């Protein structure tokens, strides 16, 4: 990959992030309600106090450039303001508390579903019309078309409420996180199982359907005929010739998905009361906690951009045609 290609992608990402910061700033300034009223929440507030507060927070200055400049400045310093709902807590620490659980859930889910989904899709597409294809594609389509809560709720009914194998919600039992070493991990794993299954099943459906069609498309390429003409074993034709080419569109898809799911598989988190960014988003929305929402939006947008950048870089490594 050339430095020029890398530089272009990087520049593109930086420009996009700058645009996001600007949009994020304007969007929340256009929302109804004024911050000082929500914070001070006293209808008998005297005009002087309001004025003083506005002056203290810089709200008396014009939106552009003064407020924008100070917003960008503090954002760059990593200061995203203070939460309305979680009084006194900086937005960064509110979000930071929730990033871990989401990354654990969604990161593992992506990993599992990418491996399983691609394997199923590749095999189904290669043996099109075979048993794996007919069963796998049907199931995948059903899973792909179901929202997370539709996948998740039957799992709760059967495996948590019915069989009682797993807890219904949360990330830890009461005091579970404080138990000695293997027990705390086991407790976490039991809580993780159902939400992880939900997220993974949905993504497996998506990945296997797309991998299947990608393999089918690749299978009719001339270089596959060449590989067959070489008398190579079927498995070798698939692994060495069809698979690397069919993976190219998948790389982009997985990386972009990764960006979106940082925002939390919101419904999956809500169904299982998973303390991640998804539940935080809903809580913040209900409380009109603009600073937290703003922070989450910024985080999600930036991770989508970064994931795209990663996709471009990986794509460039896999496909020699884009290296220049």
């Amino acid at each position: 990959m050339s430095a020029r290609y890398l530089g272009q992608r990087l520049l593109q990402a930086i420009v996009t992030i700058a645009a996001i910061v600007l949009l994020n700033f304007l969007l929340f300034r256009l929302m109804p309600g004024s911050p000082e009223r929500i914070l001070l929440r006293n209808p008998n507030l005297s005009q002087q106090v309001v004025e003083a507060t506005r002056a203290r927070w810089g709200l008396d200055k014009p939106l552009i450039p003064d407020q924008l400049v100070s917003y960008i400045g503090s954002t760059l310093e990593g200061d995203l303001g203070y939460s309305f709902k979680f009084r006194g807590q900086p937005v960064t620490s509110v979000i930071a508390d929730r990033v871990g659980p989401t990354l654990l859930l969604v990161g593992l889910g992506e990993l599992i579903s990418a491996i399983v989904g691609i394997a199923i899709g590749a095999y189904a597409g290669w043996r099109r019309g075979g048993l794996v294809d007919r069963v796998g594609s049907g199931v995948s389509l059903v899973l792909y078309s179901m929202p997370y809560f539709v996948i998740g709720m039957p799992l709760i009914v059967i495996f948590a409420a019915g069989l009682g194998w797993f807890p219904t919600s949360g990330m830890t039992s009461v005091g579970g996180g404080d138990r000695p070493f293997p027990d705390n991990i086991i407790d976490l794993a039991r809580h993780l199982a159902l939400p992880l299954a939900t997220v993974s099943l949905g993504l497996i459906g998506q990945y296997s359907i797309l991998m299947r069609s990608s393999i089918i498309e690749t299978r009719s390429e001339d270089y596959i005929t060449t590989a067959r003409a070489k008398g190579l074993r079927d498995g070798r034709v698939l692994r060495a010739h069809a698979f690397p080419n069919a993976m190219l569109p998948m790389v982009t898809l997985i990386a972009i998905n990764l960006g979106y799911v940082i925002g939390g598989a919101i419904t999956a988190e809500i169904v299982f009361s998973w303390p991640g960014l998804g539940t935080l988003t809903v809580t913040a929305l209900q409380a009109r906690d603009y600073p937290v929402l703003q922070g989450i939006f910024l985080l999600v947008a930036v991770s989508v951009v970064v994931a795209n950048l990663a996709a471009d870089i990986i794509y460039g490594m896999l496909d020699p045609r884009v290296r220049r």
Partner: protein
Amino acid sequence: MTAEIRGRRQWPLPKQADPSAPLLKVENLQTHFQLGRGWVKAVDGVSFGLDDGEALGLVGESGCGKTTTALSLVRLLPSNGKIRGGSVELFGIDLVPKTDRQLDRYRWREISIVFQGAMNALNPVVQVRRQIAEPVQYRLNQSESASLKRADELLDMVGIPSRRLGAYPHELSGGMRQRAMIAMALACDPAIVIGDEPTTALDAMVQAQILVLLEQLRRDLGLSLILITHDLSVVAETCDRVLVMYAGRVAEEGPVSRVFTEPRHPYTRKLLGAFPNIRSDRRTLETIPGEPPDLVNPPAGCRFAPRCAQAMPVCSGTPPPEVSFDDGVRVACHLFGTTA
């Protein structure tokens, strides 16, 4: 001649091979494609032979079954294609009844193919030299380094400079890619190389270079060549014998020198007439009226009869028998029905 050329082989003959059998003998080959409305009889009763070191040209209009005939030899047919009759004997071994797994032994090691568009026939994400080394490594069980060394020698042999060794297909020009494709076809030192319109996608200068290269390699390596082409001048320059196909059947077959100077089948005559000659008056260029028949329900008699200016009543009712002449030409036409 036969023994001498077979003696050059670097790799042993297949176990069941009969050393005295002809290199390739195709008898009454029938390859059909299944469509919703029936079987397309793309190749319907084609017979021919190929000797060691010989070059055979396969000519005819698009869709006459040239490529299907060639791909049937190692059964590289689309999933709806099936060999429904006949035999393909290589060293006396019939390849038609073999399973795909058994046929793998013969693919590339005995019969390799230079495909038409090398851009699409080469894998875009694999280095060209690795694609050439692949059959050496996986079919002849050579080490990776030995295979790559062989690939580099082959690339050198076809005239690709050593600084381009690490190139990917898109980094090479059309002519270079076709050279690489030829190098790949030679990787396992095959007995037969099939050229499926190997020069069609190239400009005239590069075409000539590729043909010279093929001719030189054939002499040096004692290859047998089956060259599929629309271009009769290519056949005239490179081939010993020519097989003219029409609508899935052999129209005429014989030594190039004979067929081109004294074409007997009306279709061959039309085909030669339809080919522009740079030295002749351009007004003499002819076309053949009509179009080839529907191969799901081909005409009962001679398939060329509906377009033939010399058609007789018998032509539309009875398929013409193949008639052999003393000069080595055989023709399937009622004009010669009772002679010879």
